[in-house]
């Protein structure tokens, strides 16, 4: 494929800003799309050109395939970068790009589709010797079938929607009595949320860590992993703080999981950046959870420890370049932590807050990275994600990265917006966190 000269960024907020910066470095023209609510947004100000695609509500703007494609075609772009969220894992959108001869900066639509169906993904991985959590072979039709499987793998089990995500269509089932009721509930929820009532069943692992591997794959079958990220600190399945590398992995386990991640990507002929999410249990058994077929929010920590610019690599892969490194070239330098600063009220169950930023000071200096779209006098709109800033610190080792994060968080001033900064400080100073004793239940314990 020829060099990309003009990219439309089908996103907003910090990731749109991040992509614009990458494009500028590569000398690529950028076009931002925006909603009427985002007129004053930084991604609009920084792009070479920007086009309003609809009103504030996402379904009429950032999720509106037709309008975005129409803008892309009318403005004759070579490529679209979908960022994360919104249309990034919409296989139909990727397919429209393919049909319009516009490079979708991400995998082929077929890969998105395959990995988007969680039960299909599970089957493919199992068939390719990627360990999956014991459970059903594909979709489960009846409570009787489910009970039969649960008896083999043992309670508790978890029922999940095939097209699921974000906790919807999930139920934890402790005994066969609950099976019928909860399966019905899960089906109904899945049907409502994803338009498909298919469900599958897995063993529910109570104590686990969420560890993910970043992979990059070019068009020529070269796949490399960029090591791992520890993402166990979550609230309602939303990551809050991530680190790289995960302190719980030793070199042997890291190498083994990394190899598995690469094999998983190869199994579906994956191209571009992707993430294999694993669940790691108390005994260091790891299981494929799902694959995210896009750039992740937490990609900067991988950039900090490997030096690789993931956004620029995504574009180069889309341009048909070969990966400029092989697995042996990828080294881990130091330790990085990302804190997601959200505009939300910690005293009111972390309800998202909108409003005007009247005063702003963000930290800087050695080993501090800010990825954000906010500025003083920016008005945070109501419609979108509450994440307003990613604060990333890097240190020679975990201790230094933590003390730097502590220092950096103490500097943050975002007035009069309510934020989760105090919660982030609480995490960073928590004795369990300091010794790396964290799992997916850690944050709930702190908040209570």
């Amino acid at each position, binding site marked *: 494929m020829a060099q990309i000269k003009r990219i439309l960024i089908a996103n907003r907020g910090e990731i749109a800003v991040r992509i614009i910066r990458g494009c500028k470095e590569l000398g690529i023209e950028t076009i931002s799309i925006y909603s*009427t609510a985002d*007129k*004053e947004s*930084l991604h*609009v*100000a920084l792009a070479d050109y*920007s*086009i*309003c*695609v*609809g*009103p504030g509500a996402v379904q009429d*703007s950032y999720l509106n395939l*037709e*309008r*975005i*494609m*129409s*803008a892309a*075609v*009318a*403005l004759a772009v070579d490529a679209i970068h979908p960022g994360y969220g919104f249309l990034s894992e919409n296989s139909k959108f990727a397919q429209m790009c393919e049909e319009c001869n516009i490079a979708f900066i991400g995998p082929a639509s077929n890969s998105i589709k395959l990995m988007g169906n969680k039960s299909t993904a599970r089957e493919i991985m199992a068939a390719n010797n990627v360990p999956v959590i014991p459970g059903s072979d594909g979709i489960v039709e009846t409570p009787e079938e489910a009970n039969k499987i649960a008896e083999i793998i043992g309670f508790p089990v978890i029922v999940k929607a095939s097209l699921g995500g974000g906790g919807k269509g999930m139920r934890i089932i402790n005994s066969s009595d609950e099976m019928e009721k909860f399966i019905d509930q899960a089906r109904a929820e899945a049907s409502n949320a994803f338009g498909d009532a298919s469900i599958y069943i897995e063993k529910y692992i109570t104590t686990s860590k969420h560890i993910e591997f970043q992979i990059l794959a070019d068009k020529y079958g070269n796949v490399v992993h960029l090591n791992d990220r520890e993402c166990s600190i979550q609230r309602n399945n939303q990551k809050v703080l991530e680190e790289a590398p995960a302190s719980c992995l030793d070199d042997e386990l890291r190498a083994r999981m990394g190899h598995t991640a690469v094999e998983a990507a190869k199994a579906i002929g994956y191209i571009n950046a992707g993430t294999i999410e694993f669940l790691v249990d108390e005994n260091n058994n790891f299981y494929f959870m799902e694959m995210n077929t896009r750039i992740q929010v937490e990609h900067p920590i991988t950039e900090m420890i490997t030096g690789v610019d993931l956004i620029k690599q995504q574009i180069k892969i889309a341009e048909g370049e070969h990966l400029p490194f092989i697995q042996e070239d990828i080294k881990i330098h130091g330790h990085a932590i990302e804190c997601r600063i959200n505009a939300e009220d910690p005293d009111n169950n972390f309800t998202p807050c909108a409003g005007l930023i*009247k*005063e*702003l*000071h963000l930290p800087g200096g050695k080993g501090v990275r800010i990825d954000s779209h906010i*500025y*003083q*006098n*920016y008005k945070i709109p109501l419609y979108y994600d509450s994440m307003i800033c990613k604060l990333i610190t890097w240190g020679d080792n975990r201790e230094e990265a933590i003390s730097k994060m502590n220092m950096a968080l103490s500097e943050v*001033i975002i*007035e009069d917006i309510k934020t989760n900064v105090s919660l982030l400080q609480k995490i960073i100073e928590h004795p369990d966190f300091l010794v790396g004793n964290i799992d997916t239940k850690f944050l709930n314990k702190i908040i209570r």
Partner: protein
Amino acid sequence: MNINEILVLIDKLNETSINELNLTDNSFSLHISKNIANTSVSHVPEIVTPKLTIEKSTNDQTIETFNEKDIIVKSPLVGIYYEAASVDAKPFVSIGQKVNAGDVVCIIEAMKIFNEIKSPCSGIVKKIFPSNLEVIEYDQSLIVIGEDI
């Protein structure tokens, strides 16, 4: 409580962020206090200033030069503006022309679909903003229709 126990308490206060300790046990009472250093958090002073933006809205500025009763037809979609039905055809509207509610005033092509934009009212065309084949964004002003005097 003996002297050694008191010394342990003093060390504890010294090392920690605890500032004061009061203890009463029957007739025994003990009070230890530490001076708190005065820390102050300073805030960056606040003055309202103009917005950070380079997105100049030409639309809004131009609107002001028209009559309050004028109707501005705005684009409901994103696409390419066509002033006429074909290359050879006359433009749908021209300045000074009378239009009726429901008359087609232009076409916006989005993804090979040609969408007719219709006048919401009757009146006189006072202004046409886009040039033929211009890329139109959502909510962009297309045409101003004034009162038919």
